[in-house]
């Protein structure tokens, strides 16, 4: 994990003081709410329906026990005893007092955390594969590059007043676990024929009211020029992105309206110029210096097969189920990656209590080389657990209601805060997620259905990623009543696609039944259990689903 040195510490400390000064000016009335808004947003402070919300950066989703315990402490001391993990690997506190924010930031700074650029029209927290450093299929640790980008983008003097927010995500495997194609910049670390490291680059992806899949502008960008190229993209966007309409201000619209070929040419021209001056070309020593922070922990040499693990699977149905869904293969023999579901049936997706955070911190310290990850699917991950230890980890998780064996299943639902918290919402999201989870609570039925991602947003801003849900649910307002529009066939992985609207929306009473109808239709028409919902949808198209949903209408 990256560790602050004196420079990083002082940087964050100065930022806390800068923000304290801004808050003081707001509280004294020197700044109006309008003047203060862009300043507070730059530091993750939103004004919501009931209170201020503070969004804390968890760079590329990597935490350790000390940080997680501090988050638990903040939840208890300044909020109502819980926090909400988001789809961009951040954490939100929903019940915060503005006057306490500087103190919270100070407490965060003590554990090398901050809220810098977690909102506002700037380069946001850089996200990465939550299995980084552990996944069997990765070719490098993407966090090295995410950290380099995080540093470069922090209080960037040129790119702090962009047309709109700007999101970057990095992966280093063919499997895309960070939804890079729906980010403003998506980066995939790869090697060329000569064995050199570099990046494939996508630009202009994004969700929101006009969802778009990113366009590839580079098949191979040399590793050393990552920052030169990103600076070029940002500069083209800063100068030419639309500022007349905030709904058309994202990079995706510029790419769409200008055409990807012309944008690519502009980026290349800017890039050539920046590269020629060389100020951002990365020296190998600097990459190596950052890489050293992400060096693999001291894994033991273990047999690939653990008899304790196998015995536990044979003994306990519930453990076997947990392993089947929530343990992924690790690159090192004898280890596994454990997903901790924050989607217990009936609980708000992504929420964790202070006690749960502390328990997970203890488990990380004891069993996972002190590492925890936040996934963009709003779960937590213990990345490096010995197979021998997984039974004990499972037992401890189960006691805290954290062992729901549903990773990737129909009840592993992403939902935005919706009308329960958010002032922009048309409809509630969390209760719909809870009701769907309750309807499908039977784990045998979930297993039968297999991999199925439901994603729910309370309005067109799409914080719940509904466009890339296999089943997407969007809250709309129909004459003052909450309605839900369903999209099918979206996907946020390497086969990225935007879901299609199936037909007219459903009332709050009808929506859970509609989801069930879709699932039953899939089960009836699939070629077998090996054909997932997404593959079946891609084969069948939406017609059979539409028929089933609207047959008696």
């Amino acid at each position, binding site marked *: 994990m990256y560790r602050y040195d004196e*420079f990083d510490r002082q940087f964050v400390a100065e930022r806390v003081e800068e923000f304290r000064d801004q808050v003081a000016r707001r509280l004294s009335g020197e700044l109006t709410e309008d003047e203060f808004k862009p300043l507070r947003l730059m530091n993750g402070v939103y004004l919501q329906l009931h209170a201020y919300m503070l969004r804390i950066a968890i760079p590329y989703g990597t935490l350790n026990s000390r940080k997680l315990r501090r988050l638990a402490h903040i939840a208890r001391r300044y909020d109502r005893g819980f926090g909400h993990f988001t789809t961009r690997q951040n954490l939100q506190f929903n019940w915060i007092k503005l006057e306490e924010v500087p103190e919270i930031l100070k407490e965060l700074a003590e554990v090398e955390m901050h809220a810098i650029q977690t909102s506002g029209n700037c380069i946001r927290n850089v996200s990465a594969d939550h299995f980084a450093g552990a996944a069997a299929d990765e070719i490098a640790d993407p966090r090295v590059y995410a950290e380099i980008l995080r540093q470069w983008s922090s209080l960037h*003097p040129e790119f702090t*007043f962009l047309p709109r927010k700007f999101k970057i995500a990095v992966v280093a495997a063919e499997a895309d676990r960070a939804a890079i194609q729906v980010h403003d910049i998506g980066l995939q670390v790869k090697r060329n024929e000569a064995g050199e490291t570099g990046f494939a680059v996508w630009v202009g992806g994004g969700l929101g009211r006009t969802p778009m899949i990113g366009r590839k502008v580079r098949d191979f960008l040399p590793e050393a020029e990552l920052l030169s190229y990103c600076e070029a993209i940002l500069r083209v966007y800063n100068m030419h992105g639309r500022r007349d309409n905030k709904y058309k201000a994202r990079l995706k619209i510029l790419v769409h309206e200008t055409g990807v070929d012309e944008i690519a040419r502009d980026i290349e021209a800017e890039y050539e*110029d920046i590269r020629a001056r060389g*100020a*951002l070309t990365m*020296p190998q020593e600097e990459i190596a210096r950052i890489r050293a922070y992400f060096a693999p922990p001291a894994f033991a040499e273990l047999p690939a097969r653990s008899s304790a693990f196998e015995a536990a699977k044979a003994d306990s149905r519930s453990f076997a189920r947990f392993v089947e869904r929530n343990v992924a293969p690790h690159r090192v023999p004898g280890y596994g990656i454990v997903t901790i579901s924050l989607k217990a049936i009936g609980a708000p997706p992504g929420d964790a209590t202070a006690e749960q955070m502390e328990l997970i911190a203890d488990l990380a310290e004891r069993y996972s080389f002190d590492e925890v990850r936040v996934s963009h699917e709003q779960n937590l991950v213990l990345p490096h657990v010995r197979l021998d230890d997984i039974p004990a980890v499972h037992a401890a998780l189960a006691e805290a209601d954290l062992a729901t064996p549903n990773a990737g299943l129909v009840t592993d639902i992403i939902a935005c805060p919706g009308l329960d918290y958010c002032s922009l919402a048309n409809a509630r999201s969390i209760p719909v997620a809870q009701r769907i989870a309750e309807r499908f609570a039977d784990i045998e039925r979930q297993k039968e259905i297999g991999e199925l991602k439901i994603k729910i947003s309370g309005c067109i801003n799409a914080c719940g990623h509904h466009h890339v849900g296999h089943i997407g649910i969007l809250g709309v307002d129909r004459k003052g009543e909450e309605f839900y529009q369903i999209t099918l066939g979206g996907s946020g992985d390497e086969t990225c696609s935007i879901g299609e609207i199936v037909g007219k929306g459903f009332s709050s009473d009808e929506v859970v039944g509609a989801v069930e109808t879709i699932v039953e239709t899939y089960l009836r028409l699939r070629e077998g259990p090996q054909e997932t919902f997404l593959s079946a949808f891609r084969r069948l198209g939406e017609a059979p689903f539409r028929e089933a949903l609207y047959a008696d209408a």
Partner: protein
Amino acid sequence: MALYRNGSFVADDPWRILGADEALPAEGPVALPKARFIAERDGLAGRNAPLGVVIEAGEGLDGLEDDINRLSLVVLTFPKYTDGRNYSTARILRERFGYRGELRAIGNVLRDQLRFMLRCGFDALEITHEGTIAALRDGRINLVSLHYQPASRDEAAPPTAGGHPWRRSSAGRL
């Protein structure tokens, strides 16, 4: 209104910043809107006084490329402080074109942005916001002084720099 240049407020501003149809004075330094400058470029060439140009946010530098190095003042406007386009224009002027003359920010120039502007190569700020003027006069500007990326102005590496090619410090100045 006050003009803050190279680290302090200055009383004398020799420049006249003209609108689209204001008559050109016979002598003295003048700055013209970009379109007018381009239209009157040939006549201006004979003037025996420093020349400047005013570039609105979004206008960019197209069409001025060959004039930049005979300019003594470039004024870049910030109609709203959230309109960041001219930060890029400033850096392009300084870094790509090697422009060495005065680079002045006008419009919504506020205290929380001052250091970003200076780092992007502005050396003069025309400030109308009273709170910002007062804060600058009283030295009450509280901004992060350490930076993770090089920008346009010459900046020292901070004391802890060893091996960090991009770290910079603004310690000791705004």
